[in-house]
């Protein structure tokens, strides 16, 4: 088991920069998720850590040792591919045994370890079947088995649940996390699915266009996003963004949205102009006749325990997630209030979140 450290890691393909000067530390035993939209460089980062791709610049340290230009087989890392990459000409047992054969492990020990691994993954009944006829979930388990049988320093997984159907994915999420807790191996997991990321990760790195925007726990990422991209990418539906004005100086604790004043956590920095973007998650939008900020109900989506209400306002559409009990008619005029301790003010020029009391709590 090992720490993984990336220092100024950079990868470009001709003119295209896939990964931009990335720094990251993944500590021993962590379940670390690289999250981002497709083409954001997360898979390239993973492949560089695995040794399948060489970086243009920068260093990769595995357990303090520089492995940047070492071959994949010299790194002692296991990789689970999106399409599993099970060797189609071998059966389940031989697929799992394959990495051990490469290490010239004695036959008897291979047998013991393969069976032990199969029991752990509950595929011991499938050992002598060809991999061709296996169901998606079982293929996934075989691929995992091939990874864990070696007891490598770290596991790298590239969207391993991407091809499974939704119900099964949820189950495999749980299983993967449970497996990680049992083995305690450092794991880097790449996905574009925020639900997977939130469900499994100890820490999440959100990437976009080759840059790491934020590395934090799932809670932090969700409640204290550092940029508008992270705020919009995480959460379904995304955070509401409303243009606001005010004296945006350090110490300010209120802004004005479409003429109505609303409280925000006290700012520690200002912006150049008097305009900013107020970000608020749908669950922190409340309805009440007392609120001055008003709009008319545009649509209601019922999602079981909650309902998602879209309200047309002067500042644009606002979505609110409220308990399913409340009855709201289309076209009805409502007052909207925002939870003051949950609002985030973004600088519209840089799209960064302004330092405020909200983030102070994060450091504390």
């Amino acid at each position: 088991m090992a720490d993984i450290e990336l220092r100024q890691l950079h990868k470009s393909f001709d003119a295209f920069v896939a990964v931009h000067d990335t720094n990251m530390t993944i500590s021993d035993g962590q379940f670390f998720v690289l999250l981002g939209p497709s083409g954001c460089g997360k898979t390239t980062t993973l492949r560089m850590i695995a040794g399948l791709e060489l970086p243009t610049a920068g260093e990769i340290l595995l357990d303090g040792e520089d492995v940047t230009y070492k071959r994949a087989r010299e790194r002692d890392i296991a990789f689970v591919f999106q399409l599993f990459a099970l060797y189609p000409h071998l059966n389940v047992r031989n697929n799992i045994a394959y990495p051990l054969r490469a290490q010239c492990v004695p036959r008897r020990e291979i047998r013991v370890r393969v069976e032990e691994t199969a029991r752990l993954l509950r595929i011991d009944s499938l050992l002598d079947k060809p991999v061709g006829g296996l169901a998606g979930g079982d293929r996934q388990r075989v691929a995992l088995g091939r990874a864990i049988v070696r007891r490598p320093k770290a596991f790298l997984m590239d969207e391993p649940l991407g091809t499974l159907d939704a119900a099964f994915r949820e189950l495999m999420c749980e299983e993967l996390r449970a497996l990680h807790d049992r083995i305690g191996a450092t794991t880097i997991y790449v996905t574009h699915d925020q639900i997977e990321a939130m469900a499994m990760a100890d820490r999440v790195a959100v990437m976009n266009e080759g840059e790491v925007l934020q590395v934090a726990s799932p809670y932090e990422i969700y409640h204290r996003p550092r940029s508008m991209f992270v705020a919009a990418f995480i959460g379904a539906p995304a955070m509401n963004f409303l243009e606001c004005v005010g004296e945006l100086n350090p110490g300010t604790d209120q802004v004005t949205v479409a003429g109505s004043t609303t409280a925000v956590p006290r700012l520690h920095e200002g912006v150049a102009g008097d305009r900013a973007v107020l970000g608020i998650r749908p669950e922190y939008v409340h309805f009440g006749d007392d609120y001055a900020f008003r709009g008319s109900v545009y649509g209601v989506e019922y999602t079981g325990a909650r309902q998602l209400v879209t309200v047309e306002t002067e500042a644009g559409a606002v979505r609110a997630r409220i308990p399913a009990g409340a009855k709201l008619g289309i076209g009805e005029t409502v007052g909207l209030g925002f939870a003051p301790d949950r609002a985030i003010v973004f600088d519209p020029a840089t799209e960064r979140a302004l330092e405020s009391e909200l983030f102070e709590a994060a450091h504390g």
Partner: protein
Amino acid sequence: MSATAHSVIEPTARERRFAATLIVIYALVTMLPLVWIFMTSLKTPQDSISYPPKVVFGPTLEGYVNLFTTRTRQTPEYMASLPPPETWWDELVRSRNMVIAGPSKFGERFLNSVIIGFGSTFLTIFLGTLAAYAFSRFRVPLKDDLLFFILSTRMMPPVAVAIPIFLMYRQLGLSDTHLGMILLYTAVNLSLAVWLLKGFMDEIPREYEEAAMIDGYTRLQAFRKVVLPQATTGIAATAIFCLIFAWNEYAFALLLTSGTAQTAPPFIPTIIGEGGLDWPAVAAGATLFLLPVLVFTILLRKHLLRGITFGAVRK
């Protein structure tokens, strides 16, 4: 109109019968010359040139005996003085007032064909697989230009360069050598092989060998243990194409070989009997010459059928 639902893509029974009839007719047309050659190989020289052609005749193995032997005509007195014939072929030859003087060159020429045909096929596949893998997987500088350049060697008939090759080979001492012919057929086939095999290699997901390399294998080991087993279909199909070309090639063989490395195609038409070509012997040579490719193709038939669809049926 029938009320029962019918598929728009499944052929009806009538369409099936029609297709089958067409195929049978086509097969008969293409097979007729082969059948005729086979029949001729079992005729006597007289029957083979009789007019109208004989379809019903008494079969004899004389053509095959003549193919494998050289014979001398003897006087009746000499024939009478010989001890009784020991084998059926001795008897057959003596009935024509001849005795067997020795084996003919057909065996040697046939062996040359086998060595050169299979040798060049093996070499082509060996080089072609490695080249195709490299083109498929690595960032080769000027990849597209190189591939086009390789293909461009097929843009004229190979025979167009026969004279330069003849002169080069004479200079290099490669004329009439096995090595020379193997190299020549390899050079001609390699472009086709690289292109075909690259297509098959592209179809094999690179995750397989990446997985193997992470699992602790070198690239070459991963290639051998993971890529090759999956490429067998493509390799088999390509090998058949290469073998058929090398096996049947006539023009270069005629030009560049005359003795030690002469292959069967230029040799067979030179089998001359008394009073002109010995047609049954020529036909016997042609029949035997067809067999190795036939056997090779049947052995690899399963792969060939899947292979020539160029991966279309692979999942």
